[in-house]
Each structure stands twice: as C-alpha cells, then as structure tokens.
C-alpha cells in the first residue's frame, strides 16, 4: 500500500507527518529547526527522500537545509559537518544561503529598483526564500522564489544559487511593488510536458510565463481587474495570491487573486473571473484535484482587512466545473468561532485514489480529507501557525 508524507512549514519549525494510504493514522516528526520560520519545504519528484527547506529568521537571515533521508537528518548543502571548510579550489564553503541579485552590467541596470509603498523607487533587498520548487527531472536542480521578488536556481543540490535575471529584467520590474506581506515570488509551476515553460506569480506584481527556461518572461495578467491599483487593468501590479494547474493540462491555470478567483484556458493570455457563488472571493490558496482537472478548491476568507473565514465557519469550497459553481465542504471543519487564516502555500493534494486534500491554518491545525474534500479531520493540532503544506505519495 502506498504511503503519504505531509511536509508542514510553520512559524516555529518544520513538521513531517506520515501515514499509510488510508490516511487515518498519522505519525508526527518535529519540530525540525525549532524556533525558526520554515516558509516552505518540498521533496524532489525524482527522489522523494531528497527534501529541501527554507529556514529563515529576522535575526540570522536565510538558511537552506537539505535532507537526503526523508527528513531524518538535515544539512546545509556544501557544508556537512566534519568536511574540510574550503572547496578544492580554496574558495570557502557556506554559499548555500547566499542569494545575491544579478548585478552584471548586461542585466544589472534595469534591475536596481522597484516601486516602494510611497511610489518612489527602492533598491531590491533580499529577505527570504518563500518557495522552493524542485525540478521534475533532476534532484539537484531546484528553483527558489524569493522576497524581494526574484527567481533563483541551484543546479548543484543547493550548494550555490544563481538568479534567473530575465524575470526582473524584462522591463516591468520598476513597477512591481510589495503588498502588505512583502514582495514575494511565491508560486512556481513547472510544465511537465515542456521543460522550457514555467509559470510564476508575485505579490504584488502578477503572473509571468517563460517559454525558454527562464531567460525571458512575459507578464500574463490580461483579464485581471484590481480596483485597488491606479490602473485596475494594468499589465503588472496585481496582487496574485496563488496559481495552480493540473499537470495533465498545464495551459489551464486557476488563480486566487487578492480578490477574485480566475481561470485561463490559454496559458495566461487571457483570464476570466470564475468566483461565481462563493461567499467571498478573497482568499489565498487554490488547488486542483489530482484526477479531475476541472475540480478545484479554495478557502474563502472574509476580506483583506479581516483575515478570517466568513461567519467564523471554516469552509473549503469545491467547484467540479472549473469555477463559477461552488459547493461548501464543511464536514469535520469547525463551523463556529473559527477565526484562522489559510496562507497561500498551505494547501496541497496527493495523487492517491481517492484524492487527498490537505490544508494548514494560522491556528496550527492541518486538516486532511481522504475523499476529495467530502470529509475532513485534523491530522495534527496546535502546531505553530502553518505557513506551507506539501504532500508526497510514497511507494
């Protein structure tokens, strides 16, 4: 029987939850990196025991951690204990937490500033890694979405990171601005059928697509309408909270924007709103059923000034029609006095049959449904606030 491993990043450490395919009984391991913010951790699709984690702290900055044994042990890539402290060429190790923006003369000039809260230009300043996306084919290759928004990549298992500067360099970078949560690149989608094509999303800039492996990028925000920016239909400046696709159909994307749920059927060339009968179309997460490409999930949140569920009822909404028509999923979820939030990287689906759906809350619960959302149960309670949830199906 298959097993399932859920990777949970929280404000005070990482937790690893494992279960068999029934997904009823769970073992909890953690906290790993207790006391540190773990924005995200994710396993390699090629080698599921290879995990990468983004460990951050306002005091000590960014750390990248890697495990080669499913989280039993961790190390900073390139600096395992007991090894010589320099590389064979004499250069120092300790580069795995070094994220330096590309400032080469060829690309550096247009990359120097972005829009600040008051409308002035502000230098790019690295703060943290929000999201790690391991390659679909190479366990040593990982993409990192960072704040201030940029895309980095490692090809040596996390020892060194280099910016794919074409994203910030395509021209609209000076118009990007941080939202209240910072200017983070939070979503990275790798097209399984086309290794040259990726989609990314940034708050508050929007969604972007590359067709050449990250050298050049195109904003894909046509159809988005955001009343809170000077030009509601601007090319960039939209606060995209999350995008998702089904791997079999990467040209169809679903988006939870600050307000509005949208979809595109042409890889982002044009979007249309599919909020339909949702009680509120503000929210953070959105995900797609593993076996039904038109079945999608969101967790509506009351508003951007009240980051909790409407009426104190925690409800996942499911659409089986790719949007517009939504049903509330409530069985097993608190339906009174619930005022948690579900952050943008805190929902995931597994590929078992029936599909499992998981999400974590700022109140420290991780809820799971082993039947596509019909019934929910908390598989762990009382963790620190959950920042991210990922799930792996294991043999």
């Amino acid at each position, binding site marked *: 029987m298959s097993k399932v491993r859920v990777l949970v990043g929280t404000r005070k450490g990482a937790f690893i939850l494992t279960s068999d395919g029934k997904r009823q009984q769970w073992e909890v391991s953690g906290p790993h990196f207790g006391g*540190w913010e773990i924005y995200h951790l994710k396993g390699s699709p090629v080698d599921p025991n290879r995990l990468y984690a983004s460990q951050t702290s*306002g005091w*000590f900055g960014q750390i990248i951690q890697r495990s080669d044994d499913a989280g039993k042990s961790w190390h*900073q890539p390139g600096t395992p204990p007991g090894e010589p*402290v320099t590389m064979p060429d004499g250069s120092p190790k*300790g580069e795995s*937490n070094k994220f330096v923006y590309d400032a080469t003369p060829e690309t550096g000039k247009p990359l120097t500033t972005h829009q600040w809260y008051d409308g002035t230009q502000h230098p790019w300043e690295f703060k943290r890694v929000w999201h790690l996306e391991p390659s679909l084919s190479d366990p040593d290759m990982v993409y990192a979405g960072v704040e201030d928004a940029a895309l980095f990549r490692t090809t040596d298992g996390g020892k060194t990171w280099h910016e794919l500067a074409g994203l910030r360099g395509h021209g609209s970078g000076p118009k990007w601005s941080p939202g209240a949560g910072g200017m983070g690149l939070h979503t990275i989608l790798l097209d399984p059928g086309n290794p040259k094509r990726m989609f990314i999303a940034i708050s508050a800039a929007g969604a972007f697509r590359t067709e050449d492996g990250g050298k050049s990028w195109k904003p894909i925000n046509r159809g988005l309408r955001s009343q809170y920016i000077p030009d509601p239909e601007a090319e960039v400046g939209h606060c995209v909270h999350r995008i998702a696709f089904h791997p079999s159909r990467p040209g169809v994307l679903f988006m939870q924007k600050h307000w509005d749920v949208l979809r595109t059927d042409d890889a982002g060339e044009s979007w249309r709103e599919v909020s339909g009968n949702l009680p509120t179309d503000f929210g953070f997460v959105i995900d797609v059923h593993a076996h039904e490409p038109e079945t999608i999930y969101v967790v509506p949140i009351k508003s951007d000034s009240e980051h909790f569920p409407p009426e104190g009822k925690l409800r996942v909404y499911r659409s089986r029609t790719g949007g517009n028509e939504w049903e509330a999923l409530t069985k097993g979820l608190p339906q009174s006095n619930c005022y948690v939030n579900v952050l943008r990287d805190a929902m995931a689906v597994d590929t078992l049959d029936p599909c499992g759906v998981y999400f974590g809350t700022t109140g420290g619960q991780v809820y799971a449904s082993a039947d596509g959302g019909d019934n929910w149960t908390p598989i762990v309670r009382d963790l620190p606030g959950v920042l991210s949830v990922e799930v792996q199906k294991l043999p």
Partner: protein
Amino acid sequence: MILVVLPAHLRTLARVEGDVQLEVAGPVTVRSVLEALEARYPMLRGTIRDHTTLERRPFLRYFACGEDLSLESPDTPLPEAIVNGQEPFFVIGAIAGG
C-alpha cells in the same frame, strides 16, 4: 585563544555546544574574530554578517567586556581581556519578536 559566545540558534547551526574557541591570526578585532569564526564554521556565513557587504545583521550586536562594540569600526582592536581569553566576545541577538 579567543572565546566566542553565540546565540543558541547559531550554536545549533554550527553544531557546537557551549562557547567557541578560536585561534585568530594577527590583530584581534571584530573583523578578524568573525572571519576566523566563519572560516571554521562556514555554515554561519551570512547569519551574522551580510554575505556581500559583510555588514552586521540589524538584529545582532557585538559585546566585549561589557561594552557594545556594534557601532565601532570592525577593525578596532579588541580589549586585552578578549585577546588573552579571559573574557568572551559575545554575539547577541536582539530580544524582540514573538
């Protein structure tokens, strides 16, 4: 031998318990102590000083013999008690956050 006291999280990263003991070649300054520390524990690179600018991270301070040296030139010689190992050099995290 220079004694260095690190915040708990940095001791965990460096996989050390208690104070760190370092040999520092040449003049003993904040800069030379931190360089010796990072050479021996490269996993600490970037956690105390910025990787590129080598500037102190904002929520950390340097103390020696009861004095806050955080705003001094990193090339200022450290007190004799630090040089001869009688007193430790402290890297201290701000008491802040939640």
